[in-house]
C-alpha cells in the first residue's frame, strides 16, 4: 500500500490556487540540505537516504516484537498480545502514513515523502500478520471463520485487511504502469481503511470513558481517555483530516506565500500538540506490550 494520502498534494485542479497564483516552487532549504552528500567511510550517500532509512526502521518494531513468539511458536504469547502489539502497531503505522501529506502541506518539505510508501507497506504486512495470527491463535469460538468474521469488529478488521493486501500487491512501479490512471484512485482506498479503523475500534471498545481496553479504570495518570484507542485515533486524525480540507490548504498556501509561515505553525500548534500527546500514548502502549511480548512475558490489558 503506497501513496495512501496522495490526494492532498495533488494534480486535482484547485480553483482557488489558480486565482491565488500558486507560489513558485522554490526548493526548501531543508530539502536542499537533505540532497547533499554525506561522506561516510569512503562512500558517499545522500543525507536524505540515511535519514529516511533511519526513520523507516521503527516501522518494523511491531513485527520485531512478535517475531520471537512466532519463531518459538509460543501460542500463549501470540494469543494474549498479538492483537495488542500488531493491532496497535498497525494503527500507529496508519497514522504515520496519513501524516506525511499534511506534513508536506505544512512544511513544504518533500524529503520524507518516500516514508509514506514504506509505512504503507509495513502497515499492510503488519495488519495481514495480525489477521493471520488472530485466525490461528486467538481464543474466539467459531473456528477460523469465526475468528475472522464472527463478530462485528472482527468483520470490520477483516474488511480492512481485505483492502490492504491488494493495495500492498499494487504498491510497486510495475503495478503503477499496469493500472495507469486507475492506480491512484485505488490507492485512495486507504481513506476507506481509515474509516474502517474507526468502525473497528468503535465496535471493539465502544464510546465512553470507562473500561477502555488499554486503560480500564484508567492508568497511572487516572485518565482513561488517553488509553482508549478510539480516542487516540480520533485525536490523531483530527489534524490530519483538517489539513486535508481544501479551504485549509488554501489558507495555508496563502499564508506561506505571504511569508507568514509562523502564523501557520502557531495556528496548528494546538492540534499538533494534541496529535503528539495521543500518539505518544500509542507508542508507549506499543513499546510496553511489545517488549513484554518479546520477553515472552505478555502483559494483558
Amino acid at each position: 500500500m503506497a501513496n495512501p494520502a496522495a490526494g492532498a498534494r495533488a494534480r486535482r485542479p484547485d480553483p482557488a490556487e489558480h486565482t491565488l497564483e500558486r507560489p513558485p516552487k522554490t526548493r526548501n532549504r531543508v530539502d536542499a540540505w537533505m540532497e547533499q552528500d554525506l561522506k561516510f567511510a569512503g562512500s558517499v550517500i545522500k543525507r536524505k537516504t540515511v535519514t529516511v532509512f533511519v526513520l523507516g526502521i521503527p516501522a518494523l518494531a511491531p513485527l520485531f516484537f512478535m517475531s520471537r513468539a512466532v519463531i518459538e511458536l509460543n501460542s500463549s504469547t501470540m494469543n494474549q498480545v498479538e492483537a495488542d502489539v500488531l493491532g496497535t502497531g498497525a494503527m500507529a503505522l496508519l497514522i504515520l502514513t496519513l501524516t506525511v501529506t499534511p506534513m508536506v502541506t505544512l512544511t513544504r518539505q518533500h524529503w520524507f515523502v518516500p516514508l509514506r510508501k514504506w509505512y504503507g507497506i509495513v502497515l499492510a504486512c503488519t495488519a495481514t500478520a495480525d489477521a493471520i495470527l488472530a485466525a490461528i491463535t486467538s481464543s474466539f469460538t467459531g473456528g477460523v471463520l469465526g475468528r475472522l468474521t464472527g463478530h462485528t469488529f472482527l468483520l470490520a478488521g477483516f474488511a480492512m485487511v481485505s483492502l490492504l493486501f491488494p493495495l500492498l500487491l499494487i504498491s510497486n512501479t510495475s503495478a503503477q504502469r499496469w493500472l495507469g490512471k486507475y492506480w491512484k484512485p485505488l490507492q485512495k482506498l486507504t481513506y476507506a481503511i481509515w474509516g474502517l479503523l474507526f468502525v473497528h475500534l468503535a465496535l471493539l471498545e465502544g464510546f465512553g470513558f470507562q473500561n477502555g481496553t488499554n486503560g480500564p479504570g484508567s492508568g497511572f495518570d487516572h485518565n482513561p481517555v488517553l488509553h482508549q484507542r478510539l480516542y487516540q485515533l480520533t485525536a490523531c486524525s483530527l489534524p490530519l483530516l483538517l489539513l486535508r480540507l481544501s479551504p485549509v490548504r488554501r489558507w495555508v498556501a496563502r499564508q506561506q506565500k505571504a511569508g507568514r509561515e509562523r502564523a501557520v505553525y502557531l495556528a496548528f500548534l494546538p492540534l499538533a500538540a494534541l496529535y503528539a500527546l495521543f500518539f505518544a500514548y500509542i507508542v508507549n502502549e506499543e513499546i510496553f506490550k511489545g517488549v513484554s511480548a518479546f520477553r515472552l512475558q505478555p502483559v494483558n490489558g
Partner: protein
Amino acid sequence: MEIMTLSWGIRSRAGGFPRAVAHVATAVLAVTAMLAALWAGPLAAASADTRPRAAVQSPAPAPAPVKFYIVPPPGHGPADSLFTIAAKTLGDGSQFMKIFNLNKGRLQPNGARLTNPRLIEPGWILQLPADAAGPGVHFGPLPGVTAPVSHRLSGPAGTGSAAMISGAVLAFLAAGLAFRLIRRRAGPTRRRRPAHARAPGRAGRAPRPGLQHDRDRSIAPTSAPAPPGRVIGSPAGDRERATGPGARGHQVPHRPAGQPTVPADPFRAQQSVRLANRTVPDAVHPAAGISQQAPTVAAAPRQACEGDAAQPRPALMEMRAELDQVAACVAGALQSTMTPMTTPAARNTTHPMARRTTKPVSLPGIPRPAPAEPVPRPAKPAAKPAGRPRQVRAMRLAVLAMTIPIVFGLMSATGELALHGYGFFVFRSAGTGATQQGSSGPAPSQPPAAHHPRRAGSGQADPQGARHRQDQAGRDP
C-alpha cells in the same frame, strides 16, 4: 611521423602556396611513403639476414621419437575429427583436447596450422600423447614439415614477417593520412556541419567546454590569441557571419562569461584560425551570389505552382460548401430525433432533409439556394477519457481482488450470525459496550488483569470475554 610533419608543414603554408602544389606534394609524399614501406620489409629482412650461415644451418639435434597420426583422406565412412582420432587412439573421444594442445599452431604439410579443434585436413600429421595406441598410430621422429617456399627475398621468417607487417602498416597509415588531407581540401560540401548547426541527434550532447564550435576545424579555441582580421571563433566573427550574406539563419551559441576554458594547442589553434580565415572569404562570395539569384530562380516555379493551385480552388470551395450543407442536414436530422415534431407538413417544409428529397441540393453551374441555418448540435456531455483497455482490465482485476474477500467475509459473517445468533455477532469484548458474561465469545477462566492497575473503587464492571486478557498467572516464564 615525418610524413605527418611534412604534411602539417604544407598545410601550414597553404595560405601562400598554390593549392594544386599542395595536392601534388601530398600525393607524391603518400606514394613515396607507400613505396618506401613496401620496400622496407624485404630490405629489413635482407639486412637482418646477416647472421652467420653456420648458425642458421647448424644441424639440429635429432628429434625424439613420438607417436603421431596421419589424417587419411576421406573414404567411404565419416571423415576423421580430433574426437574420432582421440576415440581411436586414446580410447576416449573427450580427450581430443590433448591432441589439440600438442599440435596447436604447428605447421602442417599443406602450410596450414591447426587452430580450430573442429577442423583438420587430410594429410596433416598430428602428434599423439604417449599413451596413444591403436590403428594408424605411428611411432618415430615426427616427420619434418617445411614451410611453403616464398618468392620474396629469403630471410628469417620472423624478421621478414615483422618487416612486412610494419611496412604494410606504414603504407596504410600514409595512405590514410594522404586521403584525409585531400579530403579536408575537398570543400565545404564534405565538411561536417558544426555542432550548433547539427540536429541534437545524441540527446543534446553538450559541446566541449572552451570551444565555440565542436569538431569543426574552423574553431578557434577561446584561449588562443586572436589573430588580426576577421576571426571565426570570436563572438564578433560569429555575429558577422550570422548576419552577413552567408548567414544560415541561426545564431552561434556564445560561451557564457566566466565559463572555464580548456587550454588548447596554440599551434593547432593558429592553423585552424588561418585555415578559417582563408576558407570563409571564399565561401562568402558564392553564398552571396546564390542568395541574390535565389528569388529570381524560385519565382518561376512559384508562379507555376500558384497557377496549378488556383485551378482546383473553385471546385474545392464548392465541395466545401456542399459538405457544410450536408453536415447541417445531418445535424438537423439528429436534432429532429430528439425534439418532437409538430406536424408532418411542418417537417416537410422546414427540415433540410425534406428539401433534399424534392430538389437536388446542388449541381455544378446551378445556383444553389442559400445554405440553411446551421442547426446547433446538441451539447455532448463531457465524456471522461477512456483509459486503455489493459488498464481497465487491470483495474477491474484489482477491484475484484478486493471485493472477493469482502464478499467472502460477509458470507462468513452471515453464517456465524445464523449459527450463533445476534448476541454472539455483536459481542464486544471490552469498553463501555462490553457484553455481559455468557453472551458470547471466549470467557476467560479468571477475571482479566489490566495493563495498568485498576483504580480502586471505580465500580466498573470487568469486561467479559476479553479477547486479549488473560490472567497474569497465564504468563510464560
